[in-house]
Protein backbone atom coordinates (compact mmCIF):
# COMPACT_ATOMS: atom_id res chain seq x y z
CA UNK A 1 0.00 0.00 0.00
CA UNK A 2 1.26 3.45 -0.93
CA UNK A 3 1.05 6.38 1.53
CA UNK A 4 -2.53 7.45 2.32
CA UNK A 5 -1.56 10.90 3.60
CA UNK A 6 -1.56 12.37 0.08
CA UNK A 7 -3.29 12.35 -3.28
CA UNK A 8 -2.28 11.17 -6.72
CA UNK A 9 -2.58 11.98 -10.41
CA UNK A 10 -3.17 9.30 -13.05
CA UNK A 11 0.13 10.49 -14.55
CA UNK A 12 1.87 9.21 -11.38
CA UNK A 13 2.65 12.41 -9.51
CA UNK A 14 1.76 12.62 -5.82
CA UNK A 15 0.76 15.74 -3.90
CA UNK A 16 0.68 16.22 -0.17
CA UNK A 17 -1.16 19.31 0.97
CA UNK A 18 -0.39 20.80 4.37
CA UNK A 19 -2.18 24.07 5.07
CA UNK A 20 -1.41 26.30 2.06
CA UNK A 21 1.62 24.38 0.80
CA UNK A 22 1.59 21.45 -1.59
CA UNK A 23 4.60 19.11 -1.77
CA UNK A 24 4.84 17.32 -5.11
CA UNK A 25 6.75 14.23 -6.15
CA UNK A 26 6.44 11.17 -8.36
CA UNK A 27 5.41 7.69 -7.33
CA UNK A 28 7.47 4.52 -7.14
CA UNK A 29 5.50 3.31 -10.16
CA UNK A 30 6.62 6.34 -12.19
CA UNK A 31 10.25 5.79 -11.19
CA UNK A 32 10.02 2.12 -12.06
CA UNK A 33 8.42 2.84 -15.45
CA UNK A 34 11.31 5.17 -16.24
CA UNK A 35 14.17 3.02 -15.09
CA UNK A 36 12.75 -0.48 -14.53
CA UNK A 37 14.24 -0.70 -11.08
CA UNK A 38 17.74 0.30 -12.24
CA UNK A 39 18.43 3.63 -10.62
CA UNK A 40 21.50 4.15 -12.84
CA UNK A 41 19.17 4.42 -15.82
CA UNK A 42 17.86 7.82 -14.67
CA UNK A 43 19.97 10.53 -16.33
CA UNK A 44 18.37 13.92 -15.76
CA UNK A 45 15.73 15.80 -13.83
CA UNK A 46 14.79 19.35 -14.75
CA UNK A 47 12.99 21.32 -12.02
CA UNK A 48 11.57 24.85 -12.22
CA UNK A 49 13.03 28.10 -10.91
CA UNK A 50 11.81 29.42 -7.58
CA UNK A 51 8.97 31.87 -8.03
CA UNK A 52 7.59 30.25 -11.17
CA UNK A 53 3.79 30.16 -11.20
CA UNK A 54 2.33 26.84 -12.31
CA UNK A 55 -1.24 25.94 -13.19
CA UNK A 56 -2.87 22.66 -12.33
CA UNK A 57 -2.20 20.26 -15.19
CA UNK A 58 0.78 22.24 -16.41
CA UNK A 59 4.23 20.74 -16.92
CA UNK A 60 6.66 22.02 -14.31
CA UNK A 61 9.68 19.94 -15.29
CA UNK A 62 10.99 16.84 -17.00
CA UNK A 63 12.58 13.64 -15.92
CA UNK A 64 14.66 11.56 -18.28
CA UNK A 65 15.99 8.04 -18.21
CA UNK A 66 18.16 6.12 -20.62
CA UNK A 67 14.92 5.10 -22.31
CA UNK A 68 12.67 8.16 -22.40
CA UNK A 69 11.71 11.66 -21.29
CA UNK A 70 8.60 12.21 -19.14
CA UNK A 71 6.81 15.40 -18.23
CA UNK A 72 6.29 16.28 -14.59
CA UNK A 73 2.73 17.58 -14.20
CA UNK A 74 1.57 19.87 -11.44
CA UNK A 75 -1.57 18.71 -9.67
CA UNK A 76 -2.15 22.17 -8.18
CA UNK A 77 -1.91 25.86 -9.04
CA UNK A 78 0.39 28.26 -7.26
CA UNK A 79 3.91 29.57 -6.90
CA UNK A 80 6.97 27.34 -6.62
CA UNK A 81 8.48 28.24 -3.24
CA UNK A 82 10.97 25.43 -2.76
CA UNK A 83 12.84 23.05 -5.08
CA UNK A 84 14.65 19.89 -4.02
CA UNK A 85 17.93 20.73 -5.71
CA UNK A 86 19.56 17.62 -4.25
CA UNK A 87 17.58 15.53 -6.75
CA UNK A 88 19.22 16.99 -9.84
CA UNK A 89 22.58 15.55 -8.85
CA UNK A 90 21.35 12.52 -6.94
CA UNK A 91 18.64 10.89 -9.01
CA UNK A 92 19.06 7.67 -7.04
CA UNK A 93 17.09 9.33 -4.22
CA UNK A 94 14.00 8.89 -6.39
CA UNK A 95 14.50 5.13 -6.41
CA UNK A 96 15.41 4.92 -2.74
CA UNK A 97 12.69 7.11 -1.30
CA UNK A 98 10.19 8.67 -3.72
CA UNK A 99 7.75 9.50 -0.89
CA UNK A 100 9.84 11.59 1.45
CA UNK A 101 13.42 12.50 0.51
CA UNK A 102 12.46 12.30 -3.16
CA UNK A 103 10.02 15.23 -3.11
CA UNK A 104 10.54 17.53 -6.09
CA UNK A 105 8.92 20.92 -5.47
CA UNK A 106 6.77 22.80 -2.95
CA UNK A 107 4.04 25.08 -4.23
CA UNK A 108 2.25 27.83 -2.29
CA UNK A 109 -1.37 27.26 -3.28
CA UNK A 110 -3.29 29.98 -5.05
CA UNK A 111 -7.08 30.08 -5.16
CA UNK A 112 -7.09 28.48 -8.60
CA UNK A 113 -8.65 25.08 -8.92
CA UNK A 114 -6.73 21.84 -8.66
CA UNK A 115 -6.57 18.87 -11.00
CA UNK A 116 -8.93 16.05 -10.19
CA UNK A 117 -6.97 14.07 -7.62
CA UNK A 118 -7.11 10.39 -6.77
CA UNK A 119 -6.98 9.07 -3.23
CA UNK A 120 -4.64 6.20 -2.52
CA UNK A 121 -7.27 3.51 -3.11
CA UNK A 122 -8.17 4.90 -6.50
CA UNK A 123 -4.49 5.17 -7.40
CA UNK A 124 -3.78 1.61 -6.26
CA UNK A 125 -6.69 0.44 -8.41
CA UNK A 126 -5.24 2.28 -11.40
CA UNK A 127 -1.84 0.64 -10.91
CA UNK A 128 -3.44 -2.77 -10.42
CA UNK A 129 -4.97 -2.43 -13.89
CA UNK A 130 -1.55 -1.77 -15.41
CA UNK A 131 0.22 -4.61 -13.63
Amino acid at each position, binding site marked *: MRPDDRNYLPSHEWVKIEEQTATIGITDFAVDELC*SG*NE*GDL*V*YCDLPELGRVVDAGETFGEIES*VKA*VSDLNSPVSGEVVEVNSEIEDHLEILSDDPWDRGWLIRVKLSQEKMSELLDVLAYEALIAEKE
Partner: protein
Amino acid sequence: MPVQYGPILEEVKCVRERAGIFDLGHMGRVRLFGPDRVRFLDAVTTNYVARIPDGAIRYSLFCAPDGYPIDDLLVYVDPDYLRLVINASNIEADLAFLREHSDGYDVTIEDRTDRTTMIAIQGPEAVAILQGACGSDLSEIGYYRFGRSTVCSIPDTLLSRTGYTGEDGFEIYLRTEDAEDVWNALLELGGPCGLQPIGLGARDTLRLEAGMALYGHEISPEHHALEAGLQFAVSFAEEKGDWVGRDALMALGEAGTRTLVGVTAEGKRPPRMGYPVLADGIPVGEVRSGSVSPTLETNIGTAYVETTHADPGTELTMDIRGKTAPLLVHPLPFYSRKRKPKKS
Protein backbone atom coordinates in the same frame (compact mmCIF):
# COMPACT_ATOMS: atom_id res chain seq x y z
CA MET B 1 11.91 -9.29 -26.70
CA PRO B 2 11.77 -7.16 -23.56
CA VAL B 3 13.17 -3.63 -23.44
CA GLN B 4 15.63 -4.76 -20.79
CA TYR B 5 16.49 -7.67 -18.49
CA GLY B 6 18.68 -5.53 -16.21
CA PRO B 7 20.15 -2.03 -16.34
CA ILE B 8 20.39 -1.04 -20.03
CA LEU B 9 23.88 0.44 -19.72
CA GLU B 10 25.17 -2.71 -18.01
CA GLU B 11 23.69 -4.79 -20.80
CA VAL B 12 25.55 -2.69 -23.38
CA LYS B 13 28.84 -3.16 -21.50
CA CYS B 14 28.20 -6.87 -21.19
CA VAL B 15 28.03 -7.21 -24.99
CA ARG B 16 31.09 -5.00 -25.57
CA GLU B 17 33.22 -6.72 -22.94
CA ARG B 18 31.89 -10.29 -22.77
CA ALA B 19 28.84 -11.55 -24.64
CA GLY B 20 25.08 -11.17 -24.83
CA ILE B 21 22.25 -13.35 -26.10
CA PHE B 22 19.25 -11.82 -27.90
CA ASP B 23 15.78 -13.23 -28.52
CA LEU B 24 15.00 -12.09 -32.07
CA GLY B 25 11.84 -14.10 -32.60
CA HIS B 26 10.01 -10.93 -33.62
CA MET B 27 12.08 -10.42 -36.79
CA GLY B 28 10.35 -11.41 -40.04
CA ARG B 29 11.70 -14.43 -41.91
CA VAL B 30 10.68 -15.04 -45.51
CA ARG B 31 11.86 -17.46 -48.16
CA LEU B 32 11.69 -16.99 -51.91
CA PHE B 33 11.56 -20.15 -54.04
CA GLY B 34 11.23 -20.65 -57.77
CA PRO B 35 13.41 -20.34 -60.87
CA ASP B 36 12.90 -16.55 -61.13
CA ARG B 37 13.66 -15.76 -57.48
CA VAL B 38 16.95 -13.93 -58.09
CA ARG B 39 15.64 -11.96 -61.06
CA PHE B 40 12.52 -11.09 -59.04
CA LEU B 41 14.44 -9.94 -55.96
CA ASP B 42 16.75 -7.86 -58.15
CA ALA B 43 13.65 -6.09 -59.48
CA VAL B 44 12.34 -5.15 -56.00
CA THR B 45 15.43 -4.47 -53.93
CA THR B 46 18.41 -2.09 -54.02
CA ASN B 47 21.38 -4.46 -53.79
CA TYR B 48 22.59 -6.54 -56.75
CA VAL B 49 21.27 -9.96 -55.78
CA ALA B 50 22.61 -11.90 -58.79
CA ARG B 51 26.14 -10.98 -57.68
CA ILE B 52 25.82 -12.35 -54.16
CA PRO B 53 27.72 -15.66 -53.93
CA ASP B 54 26.12 -18.78 -52.49
CA GLY B 55 26.51 -18.81 -48.73
CA ALA B 56 26.84 -15.03 -48.50
CA ILE B 57 24.59 -12.37 -47.00
CA ARG B 58 24.02 -8.77 -48.04
CA TYR B 59 22.18 -5.79 -46.60
CA SER B 60 19.56 -4.32 -48.94
CA LEU B 61 16.40 -2.20 -48.98
CA PHE B 62 12.93 -2.31 -50.47
CA CYS B 63 11.95 1.07 -51.93
CA ALA B 64 8.56 2.47 -52.84
CA PRO B 65 8.20 3.84 -56.39
CA ASP B 66 9.07 7.29 -54.95
CA GLY B 67 12.54 6.00 -53.97
CA TYR B 68 11.97 6.14 -50.22
CA PRO B 69 12.45 2.91 -48.26
CA ILE B 70 9.66 0.54 -47.25
CA ASP B 71 12.09 -1.52 -45.17
CA ASP B 72 15.65 -2.71 -44.92
CA LEU B 73 16.60 -6.36 -44.89
CA LEU B 74 19.28 -9.02 -45.09
CA VAL B 75 19.38 -11.29 -48.13
CA TYR B 76 20.83 -14.80 -47.69
CA VAL B 77 21.68 -16.66 -50.88
CA ASP B 78 21.11 -20.38 -50.39
CA PRO B 79 21.61 -22.69 -53.39
CA ASP B 80 17.91 -23.63 -53.29
CA TYR B 81 16.20 -20.42 -52.22
CA LEU B 82 16.67 -16.85 -50.99
CA ARG B 83 16.14 -16.06 -47.35
CA LEU B 84 15.08 -12.56 -46.32
CA VAL B 85 15.21 -11.22 -42.77
CA ILE B 86 12.97 -8.18 -42.38
CA ASN B 87 11.81 -5.86 -39.61
CA ALA B 88 8.99 -7.07 -37.38
CA SER B 89 6.97 -3.89 -37.79
CA ASN B 90 7.11 -4.12 -41.59
CA ILE B 91 6.31 -7.80 -42.21
CA GLU B 92 2.83 -7.13 -43.60
CA ALA B 93 3.94 -4.16 -45.72
CA ASP B 94 6.93 -6.09 -47.09
CA LEU B 95 4.85 -9.15 -47.99
CA ALA B 96 2.25 -6.96 -49.70
CA PHE B 97 5.03 -5.17 -51.62
CA LEU B 98 6.63 -8.45 -52.73
CA ARG B 99 3.31 -9.94 -53.81
CA GLU B 100 2.30 -6.78 -55.65
CA HIS B 101 5.41 -6.95 -57.81
CA SER B 102 5.60 -10.71 -58.30
CA ASP B 103 3.31 -10.91 -61.34
CA GLY B 104 5.10 -12.48 -64.27
CA TYR B 105 7.80 -14.10 -62.14
CA ASP B 106 7.89 -17.81 -61.33
CA VAL B 107 8.48 -17.24 -57.63
CA THR B 108 6.88 -18.43 -54.38
CA ILE B 109 6.91 -16.16 -51.33
CA GLU B 110 6.79 -18.07 -48.07
CA ASP B 111 6.42 -16.27 -44.73
CA ARG B 112 8.13 -18.47 -42.14
CA THR B 113 8.07 -16.00 -39.25
CA ASP B 114 5.63 -17.96 -37.11
CA ARG B 115 7.23 -21.37 -37.32
CA THR B 116 10.84 -20.30 -36.94
CA THR B 117 12.76 -18.13 -34.53
CA MET B 118 16.12 -16.53 -34.18
CA ILE B 119 18.65 -16.10 -31.39
CA ALA B 120 21.71 -13.87 -31.65
CA ILE B 121 24.86 -14.26 -29.62
CA GLN B 122 27.21 -11.27 -29.83
CA GLY B 123 30.36 -10.01 -28.15
CA PRO B 124 34.07 -10.80 -27.88
CA GLU B 125 33.33 -14.14 -26.15
CA ALA B 126 30.34 -15.04 -28.34
CA VAL B 127 32.06 -17.24 -30.91
CA ALA B 128 33.95 -19.21 -28.27
CA ILE B 129 30.75 -19.81 -26.30
CA LEU B 130 28.77 -20.89 -29.35
CA GLN B 131 31.66 -23.10 -30.53
CA GLY B 132 31.18 -25.10 -27.33
CA ALA B 133 27.67 -25.99 -28.47
CA CYS B 134 28.50 -26.65 -32.13
CA GLY B 135 29.59 -29.74 -33.98
CA SER B 136 31.65 -27.95 -36.63
CA ASP B 137 34.37 -25.32 -36.75
CA LEU B 138 32.79 -21.85 -36.66
CA SER B 139 35.95 -20.14 -37.86
CA GLU B 140 35.06 -21.50 -41.30
CA ILE B 141 32.05 -19.18 -41.47
CA GLY B 142 33.30 -15.72 -42.44
CA TYR B 143 31.71 -12.35 -41.69
CA TYR B 144 28.34 -11.96 -43.47
CA ARG B 145 28.42 -15.63 -44.44
CA PHE B 146 26.28 -18.48 -43.23
CA GLY B 147 26.66 -22.20 -42.72
CA ARG B 148 25.10 -25.15 -40.97
CA SER B 149 26.12 -27.05 -37.90
CA THR B 150 24.72 -29.14 -35.12
CA VAL B 151 23.86 -26.67 -32.36
CA CYS B 152 23.00 -28.00 -28.89
CA SER B 153 22.41 -31.42 -30.52
CA ILE B 154 19.96 -29.98 -33.08
CA PRO B 155 21.34 -31.09 -36.46
CA ASP B 156 21.71 -28.92 -39.55
CA THR B 157 21.06 -25.62 -37.81
CA LEU B 158 21.56 -22.45 -39.82
CA LEU B 159 24.14 -20.03 -38.40
CA SER B 160 25.03 -16.66 -39.86
CA ARG B 161 27.95 -14.49 -38.85
CA THR B 162 25.84 -11.36 -38.67
CA GLY B 163 24.45 -9.10 -35.98
CA TYR B 164 23.31 -5.64 -35.08
CA THR B 165 25.78 -4.72 -32.36
CA GLY B 166 29.16 -4.03 -33.97
CA GLU B 167 30.58 -7.12 -32.28
CA ASP B 168 31.56 -10.49 -33.66
CA GLY B 169 28.96 -13.20 -33.24
CA PHE B 170 26.26 -15.25 -34.85
CA GLU B 171 22.56 -15.32 -35.48
CA ILE B 172 21.03 -18.79 -35.08
CA TYR B 173 17.88 -19.87 -36.94
CA LEU B 174 15.71 -22.41 -35.16
CA ARG B 175 12.34 -24.07 -35.21
CA THR B 176 10.17 -22.33 -32.63
CA GLU B 177 9.87 -25.49 -30.53
CA ASP B 178 13.67 -25.80 -30.17
CA ALA B 179 14.35 -22.21 -29.20
CA GLU B 180 13.91 -22.42 -25.45
CA ASP B 181 16.27 -25.38 -25.08
CA VAL B 182 18.97 -23.69 -27.15
CA TRP B 183 18.52 -20.39 -25.28
CA ASN B 184 18.89 -22.12 -21.91
CA ALA B 185 21.79 -24.30 -23.02
CA LEU B 186 23.74 -21.31 -24.37
CA LEU B 187 23.10 -19.29 -21.22
CA GLU B 188 24.38 -22.16 -19.12
CA LEU B 189 27.40 -22.70 -21.35
CA GLY B 190 28.20 -18.97 -21.47
CA GLY B 191 27.47 -18.24 -17.82
CA PRO B 192 31.10 -18.63 -16.69
CA CYS B 193 32.17 -16.13 -19.40
CA GLY B 194 29.52 -13.63 -18.28
CA LEU B 195 26.97 -14.25 -21.05
CA GLN B 196 23.69 -12.50 -20.25
CA PRO B 197 20.35 -11.96 -22.01
CA ILE B 198 20.13 -8.50 -23.60
CA GLY B 199 16.99 -6.47 -24.29
CA LEU B 200 15.81 -4.11 -26.99
CA GLY B 201 17.03 -0.98 -25.15
CA ALA B 202 20.66 -2.09 -25.15
CA ARG B 203 20.30 -3.45 -28.69
CA ASP B 204 19.33 0.05 -29.85
CA THR B 205 22.35 1.61 -28.13
CA LEU B 206 24.68 -1.07 -29.51
CA ARG B 207 23.51 -0.57 -33.08
CA LEU B 208 23.68 3.21 -32.72
CA GLU B 209 27.25 3.07 -31.40
CA ALA B 210 28.09 0.83 -34.36
CA GLY B 211 26.49 3.35 -36.77
CA MET B 212 23.85 0.93 -38.06
CA ALA B 213 20.60 2.32 -39.45
CA LEU B 214 17.24 1.53 -37.86
CA TYR B 215 14.07 1.68 -39.92
CA GLY B 216 11.86 4.53 -38.70
CA HIS B 217 14.91 6.52 -37.62
CA GLU B 218 17.84 6.83 -40.05
CA ILE B 219 15.71 5.49 -42.89
CA SER B 220 11.97 6.05 -43.20
CA PRO B 221 9.35 7.07 -45.75
CA GLU B 222 10.95 10.55 -45.51
CA HIS B 223 14.64 9.54 -45.28
CA HIS B 224 16.16 7.68 -48.22
CA ALA B 225 19.09 5.30 -48.47
CA LEU B 226 21.55 7.66 -50.16
CA GLU B 227 21.28 10.46 -47.61
CA ALA B 228 21.53 7.78 -44.90
CA GLY B 229 24.96 6.78 -46.22
CA LEU B 230 23.79 3.37 -47.46
CA GLN B 231 25.27 3.64 -50.98
CA PHE B 232 27.03 0.32 -50.40
CA ALA B 233 23.63 -1.40 -50.50
CA VAL B 234 22.32 0.35 -53.61
CA SER B 235 23.23 -0.79 -57.12
CA PHE B 236 22.47 1.36 -60.15
CA ALA B 237 24.39 -1.10 -62.36
CA GLU B 238 22.74 -1.44 -65.76
CA GLU B 239 23.12 -5.24 -65.74
CA LYS B 240 20.95 -5.42 -62.61
CA GLY B 241 18.11 -3.93 -64.63
CA ASP B 242 15.37 -1.66 -63.36
CA TRP B 243 14.03 -2.02 -59.83
CA VAL B 244 11.19 -0.42 -57.93
CA GLY B 245 12.20 3.11 -56.95
CA ARG B 246 15.51 3.05 -58.88
CA ASP B 247 15.21 6.20 -60.98
CA ALA B 248 13.40 8.09 -58.23
CA LEU B 249 16.13 7.25 -55.72
CA MET B 250 18.85 8.25 -58.18
CA ALA B 251 17.14 11.63 -58.64
CA LEU B 252 16.76 12.04 -54.87
CA GLY B 253 20.46 11.34 -54.47
CA GLU B 254 21.40 13.97 -57.05
CA ALA B 255 19.08 16.59 -55.54
CA GLY B 256 20.10 15.89 -51.93
CA THR B 257 20.97 18.80 -49.65
CA ARG B 258 21.10 16.99 -46.32
CA THR B 259 22.99 14.05 -44.91
CA LEU B 260 23.04 11.79 -41.91
CA VAL B 261 25.70 12.58 -39.30
CA GLY B 262 26.70 11.32 -35.91
CA VAL B 263 26.46 13.78 -33.03
CA THR B 264 27.73 13.79 -29.48
CA ALA B 265 26.16 15.78 -26.64
CA GLU B 266 28.41 16.45 -23.67
CA GLY B 267 25.57 17.64 -21.40
CA LYS B 268 23.49 15.38 -19.19
CA ARG B 269 20.75 14.86 -21.73
CA PRO B 270 21.02 12.53 -24.71
CA PRO B 271 19.72 13.57 -28.13
CA ARG B 272 16.24 12.20 -28.84
CA MET B 273 14.35 11.50 -32.03
CA GLY B 274 12.66 14.68 -33.30
CA TYR B 275 14.69 17.33 -31.48
CA PRO B 276 15.38 20.23 -33.89
CA VAL B 277 19.07 20.80 -34.71
CA LEU B 278 20.29 24.38 -35.10
CA ALA B 279 23.40 26.21 -36.30
CA ASP B 280 23.75 29.71 -34.84
CA GLY B 281 20.11 29.52 -33.82
CA ILE B 282 18.88 28.67 -37.33
CA PRO B 283 17.23 25.27 -37.92
CA VAL B 284 19.43 23.01 -40.06
CA GLY B 285 18.13 19.55 -39.23
CA GLU B 286 16.62 17.04 -36.86
CA VAL B 287 17.81 14.35 -34.45
CA ARG B 288 16.76 10.84 -35.56
CA SER B 289 18.23 8.59 -32.82
CA GLY B 290 19.85 9.14 -29.46
CA SER B 291 21.20 7.33 -26.48
CA VAL B 292 23.49 7.40 -23.53
CA SER B 293 26.63 5.62 -24.76
CA PRO B 294 28.48 3.70 -22.06
CA THR B 295 31.17 2.76 -24.59
CA LEU B 296 32.01 6.36 -25.54
CA GLU B 297 31.06 7.64 -22.09
CA THR B 298 28.99 10.44 -23.55
CA ASN B 299 25.59 10.94 -25.16
CA ILE B 300 25.38 10.10 -28.84
CA GLY B 301 22.88 10.33 -31.63
CA THR B 302 22.27 10.61 -35.33
CA ALA B 303 20.82 13.64 -37.07
CA TYR B 304 19.94 14.77 -40.54
CA VAL B 305 21.59 18.13 -41.23
CA GLU B 306 22.17 20.30 -44.27
CA THR B 307 25.37 19.14 -45.95
CA THR B 308 26.98 22.54 -45.21
CA HIS B 309 26.87 21.66 -41.48
CA ALA B 310 27.92 18.03 -41.71
CA ASP B 311 31.70 18.11 -41.25
CA PRO B 312 33.00 16.32 -38.13
CA GLY B 313 33.75 18.87 -35.45
CA THR B 314 30.98 21.25 -36.52
CA GLU B 315 29.35 22.81 -33.46
CA LEU B 316 25.56 22.69 -33.49
CA THR B 317 22.84 22.84 -30.88
CA MET B 318 19.68 20.86 -30.26
CA ASP B 319 16.42 22.25 -28.97
CA ILE B 320 15.23 20.05 -26.10
CA ARG B 321 11.66 21.21 -25.71
CA GLY B 322 12.67 24.86 -25.54
CA LYS B 323 16.09 24.41 -23.95
CA THR B 324 19.28 24.57 -25.97
CA ALA B 325 22.10 22.06 -25.56
CA PRO B 326 25.34 21.77 -27.53
CA LEU B 327 25.99 19.07 -30.14
CA LEU B 328 29.19 18.20 -31.94
CA VAL B 329 29.21 16.46 -35.32
CA HIS B 330 31.05 13.14 -34.95
CA PRO B 331 32.10 10.64 -37.62
CA LEU B 332 30.02 7.49 -37.99
CA PRO B 333 30.34 4.85 -36.71
CA PHE B 334 31.04 5.87 -33.13
CA TYR B 335 32.46 2.44 -32.40
CA SER B 336 34.33 -0.21 -34.40
CA ARG B 337 35.56 -3.34 -32.76
CA LYS B 338 39.19 -4.23 -33.12
CA ARG B 339 39.21 -7.19 -35.44
CA LYS B 340 41.46 -10.08 -34.67
CA PRO B 341 44.06 -10.74 -37.37
CA LYS B 342 42.88 -13.40 -39.80
CA LYS B 343 44.21 -16.89 -39.30
CA SER B 344 46.55 -17.76 -42.14
